[in-house]
């Protein structure tokens, strides 16, 4: 394994690991605050119990997120010193702002988790709201920094050096809006469905359980609307990629040959040597419609680009199809859930719907991983799109396979432990017969 590949793999593993916890840090505070708010409004003690139990799980996940995020901030320099040397002054701004947002999140999470007995209920819910807001904001800032790598702006390139730097213009880069919108919605959809799935699974075994019923309702309230509108934000993202990063779009869609009225290629096995995708389903005019909203629009294929700037077509196309496929499933499921909720159906007695929600539990997170694979692998061979190649940014340090394997082992180990601890938390959740008297007491 070359040092470059080891560095890319280590960065990939670190990001793939951290993103799960970062997303939970955005989504869970919203769920907890809603549960706590409902407790205030209804006096139903089950909601308080719910907020407290969710808070326990969140504490574990947030801590792992905080330390794995620290690793990434160092890795930017440890693995890509040349990138940071050139770009630090341009994209440091969103990272600095993220630093403050994350600070605020960590402070108020401490207050929220440990302050139940120490501050007034009103202050407590305000602390939770601060966590939810600053969590969302810190995610947005980090994604803005990534957006700049896709559409670098706010400088003049003179003799290969960045001059006339404008960090504000850099932050307003064209990719910023579609990427932050798509990611923020994804965070709510993934967290909402992950949590809803767990409680749906428990309800399949214990349908009258008041604790899980309320948990399911709150989780879906966050997850379903986000998943429902996500395809719209996906469309905005796709059209921006078509305009700004046509080579990435061509790889996503396994679109080898430039064409008018280009078909949409679903699935299949892209063959780079034959420059076509075998065994795929082709929807006529589909790609032109999706990318440009026009029946006969010309879509640039990979043939318009020199071979050495192609991303890994098979990986990007597969990841894209996984994201869109599972995302579509979540959007349709959300529509069904919202319609039955609107018609005041009792979700907890719909066995097939509960089963579908339970199956959907990991899908949001799989979509997020796949989506980041699309945007990161799709940007290759560039670290700064069109300007700096990843291979020119890597550290001169040899033997990078050692830290790569060490971090991978560490993260697998931590992942197993976290999964086990969360599983134990779920096992300890109240049984139907425990939760009902509590509710009666509160009433």
């Amino acid at each position, binding site marked *: 394994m070359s040092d470059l590949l080891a560095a890319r793999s280590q960065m990939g593993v670190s990001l793939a690991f951290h993103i799960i916890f970062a997303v939970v840090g955005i989504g869970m505070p919203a769920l907890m605050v809603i549960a706590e708010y409902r407790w205030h409004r209804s006096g139903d003690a089950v909601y308080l119990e719910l907020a407290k139990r969710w808070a326990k799980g969140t504490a574990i996940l947030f801590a792992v997120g905080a330390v794995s995020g620290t690793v990434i901030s160092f890795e930017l320099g440890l693995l890509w*010193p040349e990138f940071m040397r050139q770009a630090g002054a341009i994209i440091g701004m969103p990272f*600095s702002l993220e630093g403050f947002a994350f600070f605020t999140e960590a402070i*108020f999470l401490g207050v929220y988790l440990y302050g139940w007995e120490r501050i007034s209920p009103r202050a407590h819910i305000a602390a939770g709201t601060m966590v939810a807001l600053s969590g969302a904001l810190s995610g947005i800032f980090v994604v803005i920094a990534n957006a700049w790598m896709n559409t670098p702006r706010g400088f003049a390139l003179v003799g290969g050096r960045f001059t006339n730097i404008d960090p504000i213009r850099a932050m307003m880069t064209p990719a910023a809006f579609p990427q932050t919108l798509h990611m923020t919605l994804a965070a709510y959809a993934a967290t909402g469905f992950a949590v809803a799935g767990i409680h749906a699974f428990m309800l399949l075994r214990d349908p009258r359980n008041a604790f899980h019923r309320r948990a399911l309702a709150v989780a879906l309230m966050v997850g379903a609307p986000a998943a429902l509108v996500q395809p719209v934000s996906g469309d905005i993202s796709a059209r921006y990629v078509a305009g700004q990063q046509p080579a990435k779009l061509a790889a996503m869609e396994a679109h080898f040959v430039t064409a008018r009225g280009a078909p949409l290629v679903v699935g299949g096995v892209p063959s780079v040597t034959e420059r076509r995708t075998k065994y795929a389903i082709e929807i006529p005019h589909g790609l032109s419609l999706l990318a440009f909203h026009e029946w006969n629009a010309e879509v640039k294929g990979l043939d318009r680009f020199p071979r050495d700037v192609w991303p890994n077509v098979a990986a990007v196309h597969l990841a894209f199809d996984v994201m869109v496929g599972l995302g579509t499933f979540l959007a349709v499921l959300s529509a069904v859930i919202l319609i039955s909720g609107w018609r005041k159906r009792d979700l907890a007695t719909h066995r097939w719907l509960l089963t579908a929600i339970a199956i959907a539990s990991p899908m949001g997170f799989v979509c997020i991983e796949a989506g980041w694979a699309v945007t990161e692998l799709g940007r290759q061979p560039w670290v700064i799109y069109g300007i700096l190649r990843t291979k020119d940014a890597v550290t001169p340090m040899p033997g990078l396979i050692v830290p790569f394997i060490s971090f991978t082992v560490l993260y697998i180990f931590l992942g197993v432990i976290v999964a086990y601890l969360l599983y*134990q938390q779920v096992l300890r959740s109240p049984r139907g017969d425990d939760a009902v008297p509590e509710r009666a007491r509160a009433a």
Partner: protein
Amino acid sequence: MLTSAVIIAGIIMLSLNAYVLLAGADFGGGVWDFLATGPRRQAQRDLISHALAPIWEANHVWLILVIVLLFTCFPLAFSTFAIALHIPLTLMLFGIVLRGSAFVFRSYGSDENATQERWGRVFAIASIVTPVLLGMCVGAIATGNIDPAIFTSDFGGSFADQFIAPWLTTFGLGVGLLALALFSFLAAVYLTIEAEGTELQEDFRARALWAAAAVFVIAFGVLGLSMREAPMVRRALTGGPFALPFHIVTGIAALTAIWALVTRRFRLARVAAAAQVTFILWGWAVAQFPYILPPSLTIDATAAPQRTLTLTLWGLAVGACVLFPSLYYLFRVFKMGGQRG
């Protein structure tokens, strides 16, 4: 000259100072967890865990702020430092990840004693190793061994010359141990206040005094090693214009801390201990001024373009307006008055 670059370098040092005083003490807590002994062993561990739980994550963010400001405003110094110190920084990150994870796994994990014990060990050992590595990185900067020229292809040093020699020195190791001793000292002093009104207070008072003795011995050792290995530090600490006042104020703070501990004036001891650590840290900063990464990278010459610096200063001003009230609130809720929940 007080340029924006110098002001930001000062703010980076202030953030590092906050990290050392706050998160440093959290690492020190792990040291005392490791060394918990006597009949109140479990009670000591519980107190440490209770003191850390609500605040350690917020304390940890100071380090992220240091790194982010460094790469935004001093990108060349940041990347050079990240190349040269790849190995100790990576090991330090391992320590940071394991310490934080083990701490929450212990707090929220199973109630089985064996599992708790195991995570407690991981937490404690990571708390000991991480400060040593952090100190070694600081030591490597202070020796002036990190020359950016070493990474140009025509320099042609061996792997050991490039990636190990800059940080693996006796002086570096000394600074690592000094960091460990200072963090343990801070933690023990702070814990005397956390333990107010219990028998544990005397336990931590004794520990604070032992740690003060360790700091004293190691600090003189490091001073001695600097004579041989860190000429820049030596010059500043022996002949520089700030040498004498620096030694006097640090000495006063150290003696005040010890006297306050002996006479059980714990709140005064906390202030004096924090002052002592702060003076040592700024002694290093002043010694290497105007370099951000000696021997060749100065603060002014390697800073980011002015526009970035100006915007960062504005960002810091706005951020501080949110940060300081929030921090005040956090510490008021958990660290001032009121009985333990």
